[in-house]
């Protein structure tokens, strides 16, 4: 009996050890494995809002008329140049020649007309349809010129055409881009092992400068602890949006890695239901602003990564005005304002928190800060689906925390039915004149005025700009440090020997 067992144990050990072969790492000078937290639902950037789509295909697989670089500048892409009429209503785009799609189809002006008309159409499922609303008509003038007429001047039209939602697709492959994306970019889609990875290959017929990388893999790793292990074990070369800020210090002290803290377009705010009592009272909102301590939230919830903001505008933008001092942290003042508004003993309210850690962790700290001035918050965790339904659609909330990641989105404050329900005709007038102004200096002045109104009205609790924490192998260069649009542009990435 005992010897049988002994033999059996030996057998188990031997068969176990034969399974262990030495791991030959995929070391390539021209291949990059990028870790990413969220898996895209599909790969068509013109039919979904998920940032994870653009994070794979933007600038790599698909290209638009213009493109945005990591400093938020508008660069030519499929349009090599453009002319704007004096009244700002007509844009004439001159297209690149000799461009072909990955399936061999030729790119010309008809594809541009098709793509823009499709995005603006009645039955369009483009998540950013509003970008195309100013377009009156799109006409081809010969194969390499497109004339776009606008209904009203739109100062940031060229920037908008650089969004992932405005990429140019081919009529023949537009329907199947979700599972087999066909674009004009330097990388071709190779395959997608759902739940695990997306592989890109080289586009040998690329019209522009060929990137140093010949192939790339996006590896989907949702768990922060697994992300740490994957980087440490060398399974991934880079994590452009690293999900575990608490582990950043460990990587900073490890010479194998580079840690880069950049900025994003994510204004993280304590969204306030401006029509809901008592938040319709300016004094109550001011009291909340005085009660909040942004730096404490950044340190506690984001491990120090993030920049305090005083209004709904990205600090890295040239037109940014620092308004963080509008309502400085002052609990005494906050209690006074609450008493003036008729709440000497404070009041009770709810705080609904979506899943991201900035909300869940930040919410606890905010609840503690507001309780010091008498506002007792009941924390209700919700998942995204519930958040969209209860808060965004049905406006059934007092307070919530969310990061608004769309670039240059101050215009959402003009929408009376937007979920925080802010209504100020004075603000709307400023944005209206901004839309019809193209002189950069005038535009900056108007943007400054708009920022000041929002700060003064304490529309929402303006907390901080979300940081972009990137960690990658020290031999990798050319990855974006900032993300003005949500993208992992691999065209400039290379390995140092």
């Amino acid at each position, binding site marked *: *009996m*005992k010897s*049988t*067992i002994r033999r*059996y144990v030996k057998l*188990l050990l031997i068969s176990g050890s034969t*399974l*262990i*072969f*030495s*791991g030959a790492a995929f070391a390539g000078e021209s291949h990059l494995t990028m870790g990413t937290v969220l*898996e895209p*639902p*599909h790969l068509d950037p013109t039919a*979904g*809002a*998920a940032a994870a789509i653009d994070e794979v295909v933007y600038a790599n697989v698909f290209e638009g008329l213009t493109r945005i670089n990591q400093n938020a500048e508008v660069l030519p892409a499929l349009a090599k140049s453009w002319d704007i009429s004096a009244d700002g209503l007509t844009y004439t785009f001159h297209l690149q020649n000799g461009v072909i799609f990955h399936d061999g189809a030729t790119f010309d002006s008809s594809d541009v007309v098709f793509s823009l008309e499709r995005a603006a159409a*009645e*039955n*369009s*499922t*483009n*998540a*950013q*349809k*509003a970008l195309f609303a100013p377009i009156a008509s799109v006409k081809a003038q010969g194969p390499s010129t497109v004339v776009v007429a606008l209904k009203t001047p739109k100062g940031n039209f060229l920037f908008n055409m650089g969004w992932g939602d405005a990429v140019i697709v081919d009529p023949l492959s537009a329907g199947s881009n*979700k*599972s087999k994306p066909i674009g004009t970019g330097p990388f071709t889609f190779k395959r997608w*092992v*759902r*739940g*695990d*990875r997306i592989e890109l290959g080289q586009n040998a017929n690329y019209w522009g400068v060929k990137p140093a990388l010949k192939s790339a893999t996006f*590896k*989907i*790793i*949702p*768990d922060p*602890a*697994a992300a740490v*292990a*994957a980087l*440490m*074990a*060398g*399974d991934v070369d880079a994590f452009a949006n690293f999900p575990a800020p608490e582990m950043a210090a460990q990587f900073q002290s490890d010479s194998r890695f580079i840690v880069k803290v950049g900025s994003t377009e994510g204004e993280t705010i304590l969204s306030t239901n401006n029509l809901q009592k008592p938040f319709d009272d300016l004094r109550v909102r001011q009291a909340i602003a005085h009660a909040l301590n942004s730096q404490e939230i950044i340190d506690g919830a984001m491990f120090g990564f993030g920049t305090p903001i005083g209004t709904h505008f990205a600090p890295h933008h040239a037109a940014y005005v620092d308004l963080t001092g509008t309502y400085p942290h002052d609990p005494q003042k906050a209690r006074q304002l609450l008493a003036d508004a008729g709440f000497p003993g404070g009041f009770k309210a709810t705080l609904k928190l979506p899943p991201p850690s900035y909300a869940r962790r930040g919410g606890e700290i905010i609840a503690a800060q507001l309780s010091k001035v008498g506002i007792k918050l009941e924390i209700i965790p919700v*998942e*995204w*689906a*519930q958040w*969209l*339904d*209860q808060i*965004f*659609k049905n406006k059934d909330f007092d307070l919530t925390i969310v990061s608004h990641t*769309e670039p240059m989105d101050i215009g959402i404050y003009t929408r009376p039915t937007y979920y925080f329900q802010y209504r100020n005709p004075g603000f709307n007038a400023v944005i209206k004149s901004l839309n019809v102004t193209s002189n950069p200096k005038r535009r900056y002045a108007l943007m400054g005025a708009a920022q000041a109104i929002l700060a003064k009205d304490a529309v929402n609790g303006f907390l901080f700009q979300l940081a972009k924490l990137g960690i990658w192998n020290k031999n990798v260069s050319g990855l974006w440090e900032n993300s003005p649009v949500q993208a992992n542009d691999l065209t400039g990435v290379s390995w140092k020997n």
Partner: protein
Amino acid sequence: MTIFLVKRFFALLITLLVASLIIFLLLEILPGDPASIILGVGAQEDTLTALRAEMGLNLSAPERYFRWIAGVLTGDFGRSYTYDTPVSSLILERLSLSLPLAFLAISLSTLLAIPFGVLAAANHKHFSDTGIMGFAQLGVAVPNFWFAILLILFFSVKLGWFSAGGFAGWEMGLGAALKSLVLPAVSLALPQAAILARVTRSAVLETVREDFVRTARAKGLSRNSALWRHAVRNALIPVVTILGLQLSFLLAGTIIIENVFYLPGLGRLLFQAIAQRDLVVVKNIVILLAATVVVVNFLVDMFYLALDPRLRDDTHE
């Protein structure tokens, strides 16, 4: 025996029908609109309506239920809202990982648990019994995800023998695919093996005291033969019951391990689909899992028949 089988089979069908109704009703009352999740916060109302119509969400509830059941019966599971691919191919892709992983884990767990459990019982109150049960106690107490992280730290980060996670895929070769399943299978198998070993030990301990084992020994069978041919065989009923439960768990209950090793398994697909309100995927996976549990239970019943002759006699029904 036939009556037993027919009864069990009808119970199986009714269970599945009730399960399908419950799944459908639960998803009906689940808050959240799939269209607004896909299109995000910038979407306009007309865009949402267009997408809802495209997904068939404008039909009445009974109509959608019967379409779903009819589809399932004809092998058509519909298309995923988010992935826009047939649900059947999504599930098959995930099963190509989850089934082999479950099989590896259950084999490893059985191969470890039964011999060690029997060994512990045979050496009751001796050193090897205490040792094995000590380890088993530890195995029951240690959560498998924590054990998994330790395995990764040691074998992937420190030694570099395995990758820290991910699934190479079968098209990369049998070796590469199996290699990426080793650590997950071990971390799933050991805690289960610990439970199974304890069950085996106590079941065997109970049967060795029975009269028929003594009779077998009196007939001249050696201690080993009496143990394996009579005691162990009779002890297998509780063991098989536990194995059935563990197998059902392994097919979809492994989401935490799948997250730790970022494996594209069925559990993660289900979790993701719930978060994104991809209800087509959710209801089909859940009904599939319900069917698996029911079928595994049915098979366990069959095993009882094979193991226990008394059940084969219809007069006992």
